[in-house]
């Protein structure tokens, strides 16, 4: 019977392995079975935050989710208990879809903060639409999300790229007084449309356009084009990881024209990454400086050990809208969606209301230029593009 002993050995070891695997998974007792709060007065809900919480772009997303958590911590819920669940997508649409299906299928989720980036939002908004769960994005700015094919559930607290591009162009023309702008983008879904819009608005004031890549470190061909074009201002649509070496090589080549980037550069690590070359570089962001009489900055610093980073105020505002909805008596997705659609109120970043596409009306959006001084971004001036 040697053989059967071995059989049992194998079966037993399999069982042990299965249990061991299981043990790893039982630490978290949360269950996905949809027993959420649709039973009358019971107010037990979860709100999901979906975005790149790890990976190279996490620094643009994590502060906003922290901001949302802060809003929740400061909320006096009464009978309600609300939890914020963080879902990491690494900013990758392919990783975001299973996450979105999970959220949409779990009735205890009553709202979504996100998606943080445009790509993942594009990939998931139909899923949330099918699930009827309202989304408020703190930072997805692609124009088509609300303009080309809007869905009812999607709302956002930031102006879209068209508007951002116009604001950057206006800053270049009015504040810098530029007449020969060199426009560069990173060929990605974020940088390219933004640079397109800047180009459109600048018209003849743009002297040349060049495209680069994400992951590029050597910008010599771009610099050479710049040297012969002799621009009086440089605009870059892209992220910090490429902006830093680009800016250094621009300054190394002896080009002193002002450097302006979009909100992809707005992050606490910008100053550190660019070093000395980044002195006086300007970052445009649809994020208003927190007003002096608010305790938000101090509270945030106390809770997370640093000044509020990118979109922290928008994250706070997004959570606040959902919490107000619960106070108002919204107890399921449909009533929450109705509440969000009709919401008006003063937020930390701006006064909030959503138009039929889910955008904040443009006259309520403030657009700010931040200047990099000694490694920190300091608010310089507010820009409002004429509409």
């Amino acid at each position, binding site marked *: 019977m040697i053989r059967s002993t071995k059989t049992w050995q194998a079966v037993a070891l399999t069982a042990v392995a299965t249990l061991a695997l299981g043990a790893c998974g039982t630490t978290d007792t949360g269950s996905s079975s949809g027993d959420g709060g649709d039973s009358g007065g019971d107010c037990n809900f979860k709100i999901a935050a979906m975005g790149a919480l790890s990976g*190279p772009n996490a620094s643009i997303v994590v502060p906003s989710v922290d901001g949302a958590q802060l809003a929740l911590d400061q909320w006096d819920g009464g009978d309600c208990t609300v939890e914020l669940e963080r879902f990491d997508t690494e900013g990758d649409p392919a990783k975001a879809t299973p996450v979105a299906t999970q959220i949409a299928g779990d009735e205890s989720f009553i709202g979504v903060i996100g998606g943080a980036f445009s790509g993942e939002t594009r990939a998931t908004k139909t899923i949330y639409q099918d699930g009827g769960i309202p989304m408020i994005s703190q930072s997805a700015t692609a124009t088509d999300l609300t303009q080309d094919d809007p869905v009812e559930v999607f709302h956002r607290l930031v102006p879209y790229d068209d508007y951002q591009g116009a604001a950057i162009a206006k800053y270049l023309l009015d504040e810098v007084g530029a007449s020969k702008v060199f426009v560069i983008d990173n060929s990605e879904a974020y940088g390219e449309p933004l640079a397109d819009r800047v180009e459109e608005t600048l018209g003849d004031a743009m002297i040349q356009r060049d495209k680069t890549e994400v992951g590029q470190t*050597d910008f010599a061909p771009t610099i050479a084009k710049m040297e012969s074009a002799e621009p009086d201002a440089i605009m870059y649509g892209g992220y910090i990881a490429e902006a830093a070496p680009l800016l250094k090589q621009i300054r190394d080549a002896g080009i002193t024209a002002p450097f302006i980037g979009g909100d992809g550069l707005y992050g606490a690590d910008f100053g*550190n990454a660019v*070093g000395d070359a980044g002195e006086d570089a300007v970052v445009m962001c649809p994020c208003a400086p927190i007003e002096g009489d608010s305790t938000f900055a101090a509270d945030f610093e106390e809770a997370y050990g640093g000044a509020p980073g990118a979109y922290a105020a928008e994250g706070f505002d997004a959570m606040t809208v959902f919490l107000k909805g619960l106070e108002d008596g919204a107890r399921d997705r449909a009533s929450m969606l109705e509440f969000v659609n009709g919401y008006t109120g003063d937020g930390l970043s701006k006064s909030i209301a959503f138009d039929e596409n889910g955008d904040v009306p443009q006259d309520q959006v403030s657009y700010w230029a931040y200047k990099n001084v000694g490694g920190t971004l300091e608010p310089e001036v507010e820009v409002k593009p004429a509409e």
Partner: protein
Amino acid sequence: MDFDNLINGLDRATLDGITRGSIYALVALGYTMVYGVMKLINFAHSEVFMVGTWTVLGVYTVLGATSSSGTGMVIGATLLALIAAMLASAGTALAVERIAYRPLRKKGAPALIFLITGIGCSMVLVEVFGQVLKYFFGPPFGRVLVNVPAVLETKTVFTIPGVDLAISNTRILIIVGAIVMMVALDTFVNKSRLGRGVRAVAQDPDTASLMGVNQERVIMLVFVLGGAMAGVAALLFTIQYDSTKFDIGFIIGLKAFTAAVLGGIGNLRGALVGGLFLGIVEVYASAIWDSSWTNVYAFVVLVVVLMFRPTGILGESLGKARA
């Protein structure tokens, strides 16, 4: 399409291409030497280079060297960074060989398996800087771009008259440094006793070991030499680009490997030719069109060259490198 741009700035574009290509060439040496001896693509070599760039940053940080340091400090810090980067990169290469390749060699595993352990090692090294060290020490480690102080400030040394092309100190250092290291390595492999061992194993491992060449030592030697060259490349890279990142090795490694194949993999001089050729092609093409197609230019050139010369431009093996 803007051919005028290239024609007008041909001198400048050539210089930029040579600068870019010099770094490709130095990294390519690591691929080519290991391939020449073991017929193996060392996929972790890109990370050997990456470790070098972090070592440079470490040396600068410890010495407190910045762009405003005095001349003595600049020379001292740069030399120390060079030695440290060479040692660190060589050490990493050796460690990769020990951990990922040697056990497989003992078992006589097929080449494909080496490839996977190489990719695995590459991921581990990337994550060590992107995640593990960040967890223990915090910044500057992590998944963000890090500024490396420009200890050696870029200054124009002289201008070539006639074409009005400004030559900076950093460019001289990169191009001269790369060529000096290449010549030194070439001489070492072709003239020294150890180098003869390397060539012998590359030509015929069995016969070489019959003749008393210690194959294991030769393999260690090529990893160390390739690693040291990547260390030099790392210093030159930080001097030119003033930054590093946990995944900086990936693209450089990809291009260096392409350069090695382009020149003729397993051929030391081929690595130089391939590197410079690739660098110049990329810059020329980017001047005519733009940089968003850079990798396409590189690979199209590779395919075209391989069509006509299936073993690369110089197409020799390390064993016959004497030519």
